[in-house]
């Protein structure tokens, strides 16, 4: 089973990169390099340290923003899911946040917080947090009533019901919210660097486009996607490790 999914991943990667290579060779656009040209640029930038310096810059708002979004988001989500009053108070904020056109908000953020780290962290949080909060809240609300009753019938305290029943039962949906939130956070981090001040990976993208070094531009984009995929895989591993039976299916299926 595990082996088969690994093969599928490899096959789909080969198909994707093959299509990229062919599209670059036709070429669909003058500004669209082939897969191998992009990879060469990637290796070059990795070799001369450009990529490393860029990522040190980019990862800062990303890690801080995703970290804040995950902890605060899950915490708020639990709270919203458990209390109707809190739901009434906070849910609308996150629904609006999720729907807000971020590009339009960025000038406001820059006005309020300048062009430094704070604004970028905000952008990452605005992208990542709503889906984490809303998923967590709905997962908590939908905990099977009979599981909670089971806990109560064995005289579990509210804390134990929360920690050993509600959170594990909600974990699949919480994790899917985390995955969506983290992907959105990656988008937010790059968006911030493109719209606020060109630093890190956003700087490579902007700069290489301005000098028409398209392979380098695509290499930078590719690297950020690769990093996102690796991180999402890590999240999946973490979920399997924490809640083994959940991942394989529900008893009520």
């Amino acid at each position, binding site marked *: 089973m595990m082996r088969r999914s690994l093969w599928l991943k490899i096959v789909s990667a080969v198909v994707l990169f093959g299509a990229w290579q062919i599209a670059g060779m036709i070429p669909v656009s003058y500004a669209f390099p082939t897969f191998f040209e992009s990879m060469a640029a990637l290796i070059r930038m990795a070799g001369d340290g450009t990529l490393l310096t860029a990522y040190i810059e980019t990862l800062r708002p990303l890690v801080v923003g995703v970290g804040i979004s995950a902890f605060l988001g899950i915490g708020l989500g639990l709270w919203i899911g458990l209390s109707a009053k809190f739901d009434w108070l906070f849910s609308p904020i996150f629904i609006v946040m999720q729907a807000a056109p971020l590009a339009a908000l960025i000038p406001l953020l820059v006005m309020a917080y300048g062009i430094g780290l704070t604004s970028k962290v905000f952008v990452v949080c605005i992208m990542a947090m709503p889906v984490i909060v809303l998923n967590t809240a709905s997962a908590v609300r939908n905990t099977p009533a009979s*599981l909670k*009753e089971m806990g109560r*019938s064995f*005289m579990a305290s509210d804390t134990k019901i929360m920690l050993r029943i509600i959170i594990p039962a909600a974990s699949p949906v919480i994790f899917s919210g985390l995955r969506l939130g983290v992907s959105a956070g990656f988008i937010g981090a790059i968006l911030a660097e493109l719209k606020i001040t060109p630093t890190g990976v956003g700087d490579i993208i902007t700069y290489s486009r301005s000098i028409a070094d398209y392979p380098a531009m695509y290499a930078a984009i590719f690297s950020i996607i690769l990093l996102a995929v690796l991180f999402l895989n890590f999240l999946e591993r973490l979920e399997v490790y924490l809640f083994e039976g959940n991942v394989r299916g529900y*008893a009520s299926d």
Partner: protein
Amino acid sequence: MVMPQIKEADVPDMPPQSDNAVVARGISKTYGSVEALRDLSLEFPRGQLTSLLGPSGCGKTTLLKIIAGLLKPNSGEIEVNGKPVKGPGPDRAFVFQDFALMPWANVLRNVAFGLELRGVATSEREAIAEKYIAEVGLAGFEKSYPHQLSGGMRQRVGLARALSVDADVLLMDEPFSAVDEQTRRKFQEDLLNLVQNENKTFIFVTHSIEEAVYVSDQIAILLPRPSRVSEIIRPTDLRHKNVDNIRRDPEYLDIVDSIWASLRSYVE
């Protein structure tokens, strides 16, 4: 208070007054405008199996949850071992109709969960859980997850979990309704053995007249909402007969018929 009329199925004179593990006195319960139970009184003799039988929606689950302490009645009182019930307690364990197993935990952890919540140390609770897993016939499945088990096996896990906390009273809400007929018959036989061997009081909700007559020491027939006990039937003689022949026994058939006769008017 409306006293239920007691009909002795076979023994004309009253059996000696046994002591009761659970007593329900004048229980009323309304959900908003729905009156589920009205002034219901019933005694559950210790060491025996009492079935609650009645049409769907008449409040059987509600009564069971009130006895479990999961719901508060609007009026009336439940006594367990002579003490009034204020909430869930170690003297009662619940077997859920939908099993209520945790999909993220394997069989061993599910069965030991009642003990885990009570703070019993890991090695001790796992030893107890393993004993009951074997007792319900699931030895070798300790590491399986619920979704890898059949419906019947899942129900055994729920049963083992309830048994492992060693409560005096076992509350079972239609425990066999989600399993096929063959498994159900096997479960009914197992249940009879359990009643014989474990010194526990069983309160058993079922839809099936045959099942109730087959396994019960006492059958309480509930009327549709607002529910009271309309009749109590004690198939006492059946309990002394050979289990294999009960279903062919004329007395068994008579009791099934008479229950059907009293219920049919409400079903139409």
